[in-house]
């Protein structure tokens, strides 16, 4: 009886051990499909973040965040097709420069600038994905994505002194354009089906916004009728992913 129990226990242990081994991640295996939730910091640069009141190229945007969903279908162990739907939001920068600028430009005692809406973009991108496994739990990944970008430029309302009639508004604006995203990252498998990825992506788009105003009567200070500067910079993201093996 003891021997039977011992044999049964040994078999059970072997099965358990095998099963546990089967649950261990192995980057060397070809993944079928990877689905991920991604989010992180977005740091745009260039004219989009400039805060020069007299430069019409200044975008008065600051760093923000991005969140999105991503999916990669693997053709083989290394190559796949990646799709990304993401939302980028950028903060405001240099609003005081705008307030001071309008105060000076209209020779008024005081001015107040209120933002309306936000600077954001919705990206729908697709492109090739390359994964280079390093050991069983880690891989270096890279991707090049292109697609459509729906960008939005925040509006602003300017109050001058105590004269309600002089208040004018730069309306919010939306533009569609093509964009690209180029990224590299390190993917770490926590289990056979899940893991995390730290990636850095360069993003670029150049939407052509048409700017309209409400109650803008006199030509003084910053008055732009269009804004066509690149929205480009770096995303630093953390992605939680789930793998479906073939």
């Amino acid at each position: 009886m003891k021997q039977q129990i011992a044999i049964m226990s040994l078999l059970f242990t072997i099965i358990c051990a095998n099963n546990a081994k089967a649950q261990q991640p192995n980057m060397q295996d070809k993944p079928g499909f990877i689905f991920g939730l991604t989010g992180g910091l977005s740091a745009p640069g260039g004219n989009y973040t400039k805060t020069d009141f007299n430069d019409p190229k200044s975008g008065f945007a600051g760093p923000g965040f991005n969140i999105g969903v991503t999916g990669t279908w693997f053709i083989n162990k290394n190559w796949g097709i990646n799709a990304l739907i993401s939302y980028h939001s950028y903060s405001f920068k240099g609003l005081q420069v705008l307030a001071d600028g309008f105060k000076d430009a209209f020779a008024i005692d005081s001015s107040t600038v209120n933002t309306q809406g936000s600077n954001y973009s919705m990206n729908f991108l697709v492109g090739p994905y390359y994964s280079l496994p390093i050991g069983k739990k880690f891989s270096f990944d890279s991707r090049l994505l292109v697609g459509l970008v729906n960008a939005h430029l925040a509006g602003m309302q300017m109050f001058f002194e105590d004269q309600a009639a002089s208040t004018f508004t730069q309306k919010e604006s939306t533009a569609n354009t093509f964009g690209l995203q180029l990224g590299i990252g390190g993917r770490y498998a926590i289990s056979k089906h899940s893991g995390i990825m730290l990636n850095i992506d360069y993003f670029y788009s150049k939407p052509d916004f048409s700017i309209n105003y409400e109650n803008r009567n006199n030509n003084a200070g910053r008055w732009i009728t269009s804004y066509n500067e690149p929205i480009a910079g770096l995303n630093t993201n953390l992605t939680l992913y789930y793998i479906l093996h073939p």
Partner: protein
Amino acid sequence: MNLASITFYDLNIHFKKTKKTMKKKKIILLASIFTLLICWSACNKKETAIAPPLPGNEALTTMIITATNAGDSTDVRTAKWIELDPTGATPPDTSLAVLNLKKNASYNVTIQLLDSLTDVTPEIKDRENYHLFCFDVSSGLNLTCIQTDKDTNPTPLPIGLTDLFTTTAVSNGHVEVTLHHQPNVKNGDCAPGSIDMDCTFTVNITN
């Protein structure tokens, strides 16, 4: 191999697996918290910036009107209105604020503004798109005043730094010259905005 040793082995594996699972859960939890924190901290908020008033704004002290007869360039008339006390406690010096014009004549007029001894006329010219000179002629005075310069607003509007004064019959009276500050409300009328300067000149139209 006895039963006791197998049980201990199983426990050991179970303990290691539990530890591993907890580690994984911790990583996922931390990653989720990190992502949520990023989104929360970067969430868009309506922002406001205020440029507050600065004390001690300089006041305009002097207005000089120079009128040149369109038919006789040697006929140049000048009038000066001075108020050196920006508080208004001391009345303005109007001893030189007298403009003597000939009847049935046209005068090309220029207006110059001083801040103490500094000529600020170029500043007004720079800010022409929201400044306007208006002329209020007293009844009985046979004088018409028309601004001849235009600003650079989308629809050009008069400024009044240069004007055309036209006289008819002999008469006496006053003309009140006001400089209107109309930030983003300038529309060609005198009503909107505030008044930067208000000067009254005596006008004598003679033979």
